[in-house]
């Protein structure tokens, strides 16, 4: 005799324990420490901080460990943590032109003040699996060109801007105040500040694909990498109660400025246009993809016809958040048997009407044993 299924609660408990066991893996292998993740899987940590919208390498490393390496799950952990944090206010806008540069390249000029600084990059490595890495190797000690001054340099876009060749950014004077989509739901059409915020938190893979599509003609913007710079900037906060600025410390960021298709109009001289990308930590692919998509989303603002997916603001911004996306996709695993039952009932009714209409007996005999 059928007994109503019970035991969901016990099942969940057992599932959690099993997960913890799988997470640990084989006991004769040393347990991973969060410090190891933070130091040696830094690019994963960077992605999690960026999309998780929290700058804290230790927490990001913990999230990655807890998520067993699933970066979207780790991003989710960080986002959920972020929800609980009190909000003191907004920092002063960071000044990337005074960045302490560790890497800085420009594809638009062969050489420029400050130089091309390759820094730590996979670019120009040969993608050959290195078995030596399977063993612990002695630490490399790279040569420094000049053991002395920090590298600081003006941005390429500032150089072009000085000659009036590139559009100026809107003045950041606090009017109107910068939007925050974690405080107010986004409404379409959205202004650039909210778009950039959504893109900064957006899934790297999705933005990479969209950026790629623009290069292949789906909303072409003729991009040049004006500048990609990575290094440290200071974060400064001015609490109302104190009335003066306080330094909160230093963070690593990656900034990408694309120089795009020039435009002009009846009352404006032709100029290059911009695309902008910014990430926490060293995260070039994301910064570049973000800049490509930012420019594509400015189509209407720049008087271009918006026909490609990367130019469709509602499409891009509604679907770029990996946490939302994975939540909804994976929710299909939840029971849906009630709605399915409703569909089954209707379908059975429609089938019987179909059979009746086409000569019930003949249909029944050719169908053989009915499911009923």
């Amino acid at each position, binding site marked *: 005799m059928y007994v109503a299924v019970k035991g969901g609660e016990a099942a969940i408990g057992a599932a959690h324990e099993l997960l913890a066991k799988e997470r640990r893996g084989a006991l004769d292998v040393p347990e991973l420490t969060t410090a190891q993740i933070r130091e040696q899987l830094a690019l994963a940590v960077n992605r999690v901080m960026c999309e998780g919208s929290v700058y804290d390498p230790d927490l990001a490393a913990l999230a990655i460990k807890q998520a067993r390496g699933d970066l979207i799950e780790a991003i989710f952990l960080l986002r959920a943590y972020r929800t609980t944090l009190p909000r003191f206010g907004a920092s002063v806008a960071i000044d990337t032109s005074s960045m302490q540069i560790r890497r800085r390249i420009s594809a638009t000029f062969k050489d420029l003040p400050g130089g091309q600084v390759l820094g730590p990059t996979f670019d120009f490595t040969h993608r050959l699996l290195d078995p030596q890495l399977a063993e612990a190797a002695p630490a490399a000690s790279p040569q420094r060109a000049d053991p002395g001054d920090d590298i600081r340099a003006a941005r390429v876009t500032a150089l072009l801007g000085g000659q009036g060749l590139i559009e100026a950014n809107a003045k950041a004077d606090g009017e109107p105040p910068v939007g925050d989509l974690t405080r107010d739901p986004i409404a379409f059409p959205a202004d650039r500040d909210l778009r950039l915020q959504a893109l900064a938190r957006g899934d790297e893979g999705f933005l990479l694909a969209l950026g790629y599509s623009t290069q292949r003609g789906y909303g072409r913007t003729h991009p040049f990498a004006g500048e990609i710079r990575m290094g440290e900037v200071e974060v400064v906060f001015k609490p109302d109660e104190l009335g003066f600025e306080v330094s909160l410390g230093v963070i690593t960021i990656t900034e990408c400025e694309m120089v795009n298709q020039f435009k002009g109009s009846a009352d404006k001289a032709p100029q290059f246009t911009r695309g902008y990308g910014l990430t926490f930590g060293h995260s070039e692919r994301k910064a570049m993809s973000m800049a490509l998509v930012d420019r594509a989303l400015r189509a209407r603002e720049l008087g271009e016809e918006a026909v490609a997916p990367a130019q469709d603001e509602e499409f891009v911004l509604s679907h770029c958040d990996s946490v939302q996306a994975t939540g909804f996709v994976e929710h299909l695993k939840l*029971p849906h048997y009630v709605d399915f039952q409703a569909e089954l009932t209707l379908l059975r009714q429609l089938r019987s009407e179909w059979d009746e209409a086409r000569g019930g007996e003949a249909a029944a005999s050719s169908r053989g044993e009915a499911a009923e």
Partner: protein
Amino acid sequence: MTADPAYNFAYLDEQTKRMIRRAILKAIAIPGYQVPFASREMPMPYGWGTGGMQVTAAVLGANDVLKVIDQGADDTTNAVSIRKFFAKTAGVATTTRTREATIIQTRHRIPEEQLTQEQILVYQVPIPEPLRFLEPREPETRRMHALEDYGLMHVKLYEDIARHGHIATTYAYPVKVDDRYVMDPSPTPKFDNPKMDNCPALQLFGAGREKRIYALPPYTRVVSLDFEDHPFEPTPITAKCELCGADRVFLDEIVTDDRGGRMFVCSDTDHCESRRSRVLP
């Protein structure tokens, strides 16, 4: 169970609850209208009830008794998970008995038991916009609601009848609220639609991922969309629950063997258990 002191009552901070309550009040003032709100990331994934949870967290008080069901059952894994979440973060009493609950959070079903004025029903909503699959663009659907421009909704119903002879929507069946807004009741089976009409309880709808809250104040008129010559009919239930004998309740089909054997039991597990416990001595 006492609440975990590391969290504010029901997890959300007071500012956030205030923001959600404002949205709820607006929603109650405009029955069926989708109020945008700044949905927070919760420790559960989007799509798994975060909207319902935020609404529940905002209305929950220390003396409330909470029931959580999914597909009508208290013991489905997600219902268990959500109930434990509130037990842990709010320390509230929980129950599986509909009659004892003051707040019922539900996914995809309305309890069979008649609700009272003392109760709040919180629905988990995946896609709040009834016009979404006819018109994907948000600014356009907002305009349609503002201008009460619902022709497209009826076109869809017309198409169903032309193609199938019936309106083919079996769940999330659209309704007209207080003779003004068209609303999606969430993916409850259309069998449950009549329960929303003139209901004594307050009905609140939370969509976390889509960031919308809407509401049906008690005793609001809720009418399922139809045609005069194809009137709305809740799904006819022809079988009885094989455990408690109830008829005219929504039944789950349980596959019992791989030769096509099946049986039907109440989807509302509390209703079923209550009936069975009344029968036994």
